[in-house]
Structure formats: C-alpha cells, structure tokens
C-alpha cells in the first residue's frame, strides 16, 4: 500500500511542471538576475559580444540568427552523428571552419562567447533535440545511478528531495536552463560541465575527464527534463 502511494506520488512529481532554480532563490538574488545592470553575468555577455565581433563570427552569422540556438542544444552534430553541446559547437566553428587554435573549453573567452550566444535565447522555452534519444536515455541512467562514497544519485537529491533543505540551502530541481551562469560560490561565470563536476565531486565520486561524452549525455537528459522552462542565461545562482 505504502509502495503504491509512493509510486503515485512519484508519478505526480514527474508529471509536475519543472520549476527553475530561480523560483527558490531569495528575492534579492532574483532581483540581481533580472536587472541587466546588476547581473554580473552581463559583464561576460558584453565580453562575448566584443569577442563575437573581434573573432569574425559575424562574417557568417547574424546575431539575430543566434536567437533560439541555445534552447536547442545539446544537438546532434550532422557530420559526426554525435551529440554536442553549445561550447562544442562554438569550438568546432572556430577550429574547423575558421582554422583558429582551440580555446580551452572553460577559459574566459569561450565562456564569454557561450554566454553571448546563450543570452540571445533568453526567455525562449527549451526545445530539446528529438534526435538525441540515445544520449538522453544514457544521461537519464547516469542521473539515476548511485555513485561515490556517499552513494547518492543525482535523482535522490534533485528529484526525490527537491525543495527540501540540505544544510541551510534549498535543494533545487537541478535544471540547466541558465548556463553559462554566474554562481556566487564561484564569484564568476561557469559552465554546466563545471557544475556537473562539482556535483559529482560533492558526492565524492570521480568526475569524468573533461569533454567526456557522459557530460553531454547528462546535458541531453537535463534539457529534456527541463522541457518547458525558458532560457535564463546568464542566470545568477547562489
């Protein structure tokens, strides 16, 4: 009976609309994100805008054409038939098409470019790429897999206990609709992969190596899981 009730509750929870981490922040932090002149993430968007011009991105792409792009990533790369995220896409553009040297994925210029591109989709609902079903399923399995010395899965915190407290903090649902984002903990802008590494290390598990396909699989699942939420980039989070 209790199992039945738990199953019904789980179904209800799964059926509920996703709730952005924005909703559970204090009014002060919400105000910081909302106001472009107060949101420190906008400093990096401005950097990205300058880099966009300086690196010649505009010779192929109109900025207006970037609207909606971040909402569709990760996406299937047609050439390699593998899922790639927005940063991978910018790197590919730069290295393969422009013939420029690679940027370290989480160095300031790449974060700034990603922030500028993602910002163009602010307010648009996430539209996960339907072709990524395989990656999405792999990501969901990883999300539900217990790991690390604490033997915790992502789902145990972010599905089963979202909204409750872990120490003094409210556990968010863990949606990835605002990256790259300004995290107060980082005192700077950071990528979703950095956040995933933190979470993995947080349960005392070994993070995947940088650029591992597991990250993109998790990103693909997170995008599907957050369906209906709008892009907030650059979000502010505690």
């Amino acid at each position, binding site marked *: 009976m209790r199992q039945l009730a738990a199953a019904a509750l789980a179904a209800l929870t799964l059926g509920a609309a996703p709730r952005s981490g924005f909703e559970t922040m204090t009014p002060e932090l919400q105000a910081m994100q909302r106001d472009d*002149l*107060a949101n*420190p993430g*906008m*400093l*990096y968007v*401005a*950097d990205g805008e300058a880099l966009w011009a300086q690196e010649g991105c505009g010779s192929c792409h109109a900025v207006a054409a970037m609207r909606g792009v971040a909402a569709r990533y990760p996406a299937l790369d047609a050439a390699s038939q593998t899922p790639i995220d927005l940063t991978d896409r910018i790197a590919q553009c730069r290295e393969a098409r422009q013939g420029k040297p690679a940027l370290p994925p989480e160095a300031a210029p790449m974060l700034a470019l990603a922030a500028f591109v993602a910002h163009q989709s602010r307010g648009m609902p996430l539209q996960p790429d339907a072709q990524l079903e395989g990656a999405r399923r792999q990501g969901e399995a990883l999300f539900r897999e217990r790991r690390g010395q604490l033997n915790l899965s992502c789902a145990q915190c972010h599905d089963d206990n979202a909204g409750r407290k872990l120490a003094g903090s409210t556990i968010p649902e863990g949606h990835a609709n605002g990256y790259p984002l300004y995290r107060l903990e980082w*005192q700077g802008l950071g990528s979703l992969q950095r956040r995933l590494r933190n979470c993995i290390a947080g349960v005392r598990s070994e993070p995947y190596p940088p650029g591992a396909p597991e990250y993109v699989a998790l990103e693909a699942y997170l995008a599907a899981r957050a369906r209906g939420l709008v892009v907030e980039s650059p979000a502010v989070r505690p």
Partner: protein
Amino acid sequence: MARTLLRVPATVTRGEVVEIRTLIQHPMETGFRSGENGRMLSRDIIRRFTCLYNNRPVFEAELHPAIAANPYLTFTLRVDESGILAFTWEGDNGFSQTETRTLTVA
C-alpha cells in the same frame, strides 16, 4: 581593460536626483585565500572609486577586501547642469580605469 556596466540616465530634468549604478569586472582577491599548493594568493583589489561631474568630485569610495568580486556601487547625484561624468577605479597592481558618460539636462 576591465569590462564595465554603467547606468546613467541619458536625459534628466534640472534639479532631479538620479541614481547611478556601476559594475566592473574585477576578482577582488582578498589576500586571505590560499590557491593551488596552499599558497596564499596576494591581495588584488580595487581600492578606490571616484566619480567626477564636470571635473568636480561628487562621489568617492574606499573599497576593502570585503567588497564582493566584480564590484557594484550605487550612489545618487542631483543634476543641475548638463555635463560629463567620469568614473575612475584604482587598485592594486597599478589597476586604473576611467569611463565617461554624458548627462544632458533637458
């Protein structure tokens, strides 16, 4: 050059009190944190912010390591004439940057 974001109203009515907001990209390294290998990171902060209005100082602030990274400052100013606002941030390691904005009394 550090990136800055400034909110200065473009036109104001004479005698109006306006709020000016400034944000600048800077790590504000406190000098109390250890970095890799446990070594203390040396202090690197913006120590001083000044705002001149038509070359007259209208706001000055002395900043300490307790100011958050990417310093944000807001202050007010009564505008009696059109003119130029000059914002200057100065700090450790020779940091110095000035930005200007025009205020027009309509």
